């Protein structure tokens, strides 16, 4: 006698792997699928996280990767392009350079961002001899390069201090036919609760960005010591835009945790934690 579970296993084993992947990846079959399954099948496309720049009280540097050089373990000329977006999601600046190094250091200036103090940016690469990519492992395996570089921040008033670094978060953004597109999709609502303890003597800035092509609603809730939760603020972020939420622990001095609801399956934020003298930055 074959049980229901055994029958289920047998049926599952008969389904082709490619079909299983589609079922797991495609909305609405999976309402937590982070990104679209369908995108242009072009091996020269490269996808970038949506990074954050601060030209307010902070200096920002970015360590970009030359993925082809890293893949082949030898210096190869890479054309790096960086596109900057203001908090409303409008393109506000570009920067281009060529380098054969494994890593390229970018110091982000107000000239690059057209004097915008805070916003997002993406990194794109191309190679003078695209045949190298055509011939590489990428084409035969439908793999694309991905840019997940590292952003470093330090206070302008403390130029001799260390940069504090944070790695990229998922954005899946890319330039295709002169349009900025994204693999990121909004799905069912998800609650994201970072594993942090809010300290009453610290000042917190939570930086949210919207890598998708639709407006994004962020609803932030605060949780106190007695596990009571209440809504603090809701904000609509435009596509490619960003929003900085400042948590005032002087007013909310009983708060121990923070959570937010978005339609992003993984709605992370960049967090700046400040004690008035030193700071830390990390991805939630």
């Amino acid at each position: 006698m074959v049980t229901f579970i055994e029958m289920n296993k047998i049926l599952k084993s008969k389904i082709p792997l490619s079909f299983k992947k589609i079922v797991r990846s495609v909305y609405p079959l999976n309402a937590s699928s982070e990104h679209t399954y369908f995108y242009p099948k072009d091996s020269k496309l490269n996808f970038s996280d949506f990074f954050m720049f601060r030209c307010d009280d902070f200096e920002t540097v970015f360590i970009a990767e030359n993925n082809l050089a890293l893949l082949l373990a030898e210096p190869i000329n890479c054309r790096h392009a960086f596109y900057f977006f203001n908090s409303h999601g409008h393109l506000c600046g570009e920067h281009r350079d060529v380098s054969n190094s494994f890593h390229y250091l970018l110091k982000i200036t107000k000239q690059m961002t057209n004097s915008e103090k805070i916003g997002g940016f993406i990194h794109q690469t191309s190679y003078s001899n695209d045949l190298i990519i055509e011939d590489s492992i990428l084409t035969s395996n439908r793999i694309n390069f991905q840019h997940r570089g590292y952003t470093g921040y330090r206070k302008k008033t403390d130029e001799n201090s260390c940069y504090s670094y944070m790695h990229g978060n998922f954005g899946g953004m890319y330039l295709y036919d002169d349009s900025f597109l994204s693999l990121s999709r909004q799905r069912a609502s998800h609650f994201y609760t970072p594993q942090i303890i809010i300290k009453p003597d610290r000042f917190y800035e939570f930086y949210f960005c919207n890598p998708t092509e639709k407006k994004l609603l962020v609803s932030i809730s605060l949780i106190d010591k007695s596990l009571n939760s209440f809504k603090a603020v809701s904000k609509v972020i435009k596509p490619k835009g960003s929003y900085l939420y400042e948590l005032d622990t002087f007013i909310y001095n009983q708060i121990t945790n923070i959570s937010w609801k978005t339609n992003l399956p993984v709605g992370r934020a960049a967090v700046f934690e400040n004690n008035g003298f030193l700071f830390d930055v990390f991805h939630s």
Partner: protein
Amino acid sequence: MSNYFFLVNVGDDINSYVRISKFIPNLRGKSVSKIDFKIAVYTQTVESLFWNKLDELYFMNNSNVEIRSSDYKLSVGQIAVVIPCETSLKLPKKVLALPKPISRKIDTAPVSERAAIGFERFGAFSSYQGDYPYQMSTVKGTFLSFDSLFFQPDENVINKLVLVNIFSKKLTEKPKLYLNIADSISKNKINHEVFYNNSAAILEFTYSRDLSNVFYSKDCVGIPIYISYQKKKSSNLSIEHAHPPSEFFYGDNKFLGQQALKNKWLHLLK
């Protein structure tokens, strides 16, 4: 997927901590939810194949728990593994294999089940949302990473790469493991550090302006943590973990990209 966390003594008056909450890190539904579990803390000395239980912690009426390396007498390079467990699980004082951590995932929401892994030094603080995946603790593997997190132009900055290794299955011996640093252009080895399974290798090195250092081990996997700070007590502290090479690629077969990249580098690096 379920994950371990860790405390580590990296020396130089730097304390590490793990902060973890009852709240499920990511979920669908109508509100924030909690999950009940307890936390086990185990450590292993260099000479031993046994894990010794250091602690067993409960949330009681709190939402969060903070575990600090300074609460346990860890020697430099020694780690303590922090394990979320079922509250009913019996935790022996000595074990040869670590208990498997519970999963804090309750629905289709995709998230790595993390905790805050942080470090403090004279009032400076730095953390990241991190983990040590259980799956990774069951394989020997290899390690490759670049020094992209060490752009620190001030000459007085101390840079350390800390490679944390956890092997949760039973070990029958502890051979020497090597963490190496090489010049990524010439591929010549610059230095190495010897360490063992279930500990951390700590490699201090000179900052290279063109970010041309590559770190590798042909003996084991591990989580690389990049630490930078100045000697002065008022220095900022920078801590971050690096992405694995698979993150250079996007697509269902991105691990083939990682395999090709690692094979190429590890063949060239001696």
